[in-house]
């Protein structure tokens, strides 16, 4: 199979299990974002793919070949570090040419390739500058170009954009995704920024406690989260406890709702409903009844906070669909069955 495969990959540091039995296949040419809170094992997993850490169990295969114990420098990777790790004693051009120089590529070919890459990252003419004279965004591009200079089989990035300011980060996310699509290179990015993951990835891998909670396309993760952690971690959501009686009638926060089913035999579950899917209507008519506690009007979006039996629920709407509510007013909340995700308890 072409691409990267992780089979039961485990990493233990003493008694602490950083990565536990991870199974993942990354088909050739896909862009994968590993996402999770700090300490979830995503960086350790990336370092094992790079060969900087050795797994204590399991196997890593690249294009069908077992690379678990192949040393880093023989894996033909490109990696961008969080610190970027540009070589301070080399110029921009020398940094980009470093992997070529190490492999004994002739000088003229090195220069040609460096010029190509500088053009690609919009830094033509910067070859002779010392890296210390570059701005944060420029350094970022140089680190990317250096990692790509040998056209690696795998392109790995460890929190590559975390050092940039918010605006530049958003622009670089788009740029990185476009670059990856142009080159068709298998790419794995570690990030804790879910917006970054949603922007760039074909597949988002959500991790927690050294385990993969869900691996799916960004929209699938958003629309069909596998559990309450994923639902809460990706975007914001309202998590509501639901109970079913023996006849299948469902109550949410003690109030009966129609049209929602928890599935056969399930008595207790959590419903996840995204704020933009919460519809506010007049009270009654089978809607959950609550009270508006606060309205946050951000101009572009309006967040309405509704209190239902002591639980807070947030509804987001656009100015065009501004709900006609004021604080303290009773309001009805409609749970549409097709936007409610039932999560096992």
């Amino acid at each position, binding site marked *: 199979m072409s691409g990267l495969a992780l089979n039961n990959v485990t990493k233990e540091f003493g008694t602490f299990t950083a990565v536990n039995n991870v199974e993942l296949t990354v088909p050739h040419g896909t862009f994968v974002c590993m996402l999770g809170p700090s300490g979830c094992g995503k960086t350790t997993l990336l370092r094992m793919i790079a060969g*900087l850490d050795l797994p204590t169990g399991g196997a890593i295969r690249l294009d069908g070949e077992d690379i678990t114990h192949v040393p880093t*420098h023989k894996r033909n990777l490109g*990696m961008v*570090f969080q610190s970027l*790790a540009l070589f*301070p004693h080399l110029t921009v051009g020398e940094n980009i040419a470093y992997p070529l120089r*190490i492999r004994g590529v002739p000088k003229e070919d090195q220069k040609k390739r460096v010029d190509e890459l500088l053009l690609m990252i919009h830094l033509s003419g910067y070859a002779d500058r010392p890296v210390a004279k570059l701005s944060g965004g420029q350094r970022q591009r140089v680190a990317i170009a250096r*990692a790509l200079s040998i056209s690696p089989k795998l392109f*790995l990035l460890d929190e590559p954009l975390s050092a940039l300011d918010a605006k530049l980060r958003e622009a670089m996310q788009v740029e990185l995704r476009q670059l990856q699509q142009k080159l068709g290179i298998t790419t794995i990015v570690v990030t804790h920024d879910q917006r970054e993951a949603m922007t760039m990835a074909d597949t988002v891998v959500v991790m927690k406690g050294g385990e993969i909670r869900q691996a799916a396309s960004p929209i699938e993760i958003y629309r069909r989260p596998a559990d309450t952690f994923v639902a809460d971690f990706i975007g914001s959501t309202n998590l509501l406890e639901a109970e079913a009686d023996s006849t299948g009638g469902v109550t949410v926060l003690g109030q009966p709702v129609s049209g929602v089913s928890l599935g056969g035999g399930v008595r207790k579950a959590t419903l996840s409903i995204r704020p933009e899917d919460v519809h506010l209507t007049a009270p009654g008519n089978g809607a959950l009844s609550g009270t508006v506690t606060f309205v946050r009007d951000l101009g572009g979006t309006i967040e309405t906070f509704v209190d239902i039996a002591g639980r807070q629920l947030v509804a987001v709407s656009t100015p065009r669909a501004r709900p006609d509510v004021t604080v303290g007013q009773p309001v009805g909340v409609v749970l549409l069955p097709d936007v409610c995700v039932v999560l096992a308890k």
Partner: protein
Amino acid sequence: MRREAPQKLSDYGPLFFPAMMLIVFFVVPFATMIAVSFFQRQQGGFYVPAFQFANYERFLSLFFANVLGFSLMLAVTVAICCVVLAVPFTYLLTRMKRKVQIAWLVALLSVLSLSEVIIGFAWSTLFSRTAGITNLLVMAGIMSEAKALLPSFGAVLTGMVYQAFPYTVLVLYPALVRLDPTLTEAARTLGASPIKAFFTVVVPALRNTITATLIMVFIFALGSYLLPQLLGRPQHWTLSVLITDQAIYQSNMPFAAAMAVFLVLVTLGLVALTVLAGRKGETA
């Protein structure tokens, strides 16, 4: 941060103490030495003020040129040996656990507390025929019979490298600790084996530190006068040995002073050349 240039005399106040220290403990003794180097020696032990170049003239001979040449060569060799050994050693040390690092640093510091005399006699025992390390080699069956390894150039070199090695490590240590460990990791992901990464990233990134360390060890080794006498033959004696000999045993202060001044000038010249060469290499 930009500061205003000093306006009043009192603005120079903070400079006063270090300036005084430099004058009392460096400028005055050094000036005295320069002055003495032009004085005339009195037969029988002392000197009278004069202004003559006789001391310098006497120095300009093939014999002293050879001694000077050997001293510089020995100091350069010691500096190179120390740095070649200490850079990989310190690099590996900084990658170890903190506890291990502390143990090594304490051991190195304890070597620093040994005086040159003790180091000299310790090595002369180790290199002797009767109690030296060759006996171990004989026991291991590598050598057929024990022999003395001193006096010899190798013995002098070993003793001096042993003495200067802790200094070298302590000077290199802070720079190597600060070196970003992801630099070598990055080099490895980009296709460099650990050894290649060391030579293409760690060593060049530490160029200035290494140059500074070379100069420091060179100057340190240039002043050594006990070890060459304890471990070497007369042809391994450095200029410092001759200066000591002239000053203390021959009571010829003016001549000793002249040699010392000459040694300082040559050393300064060499250091300046190294720094200049380093600057040129950086801009290239």
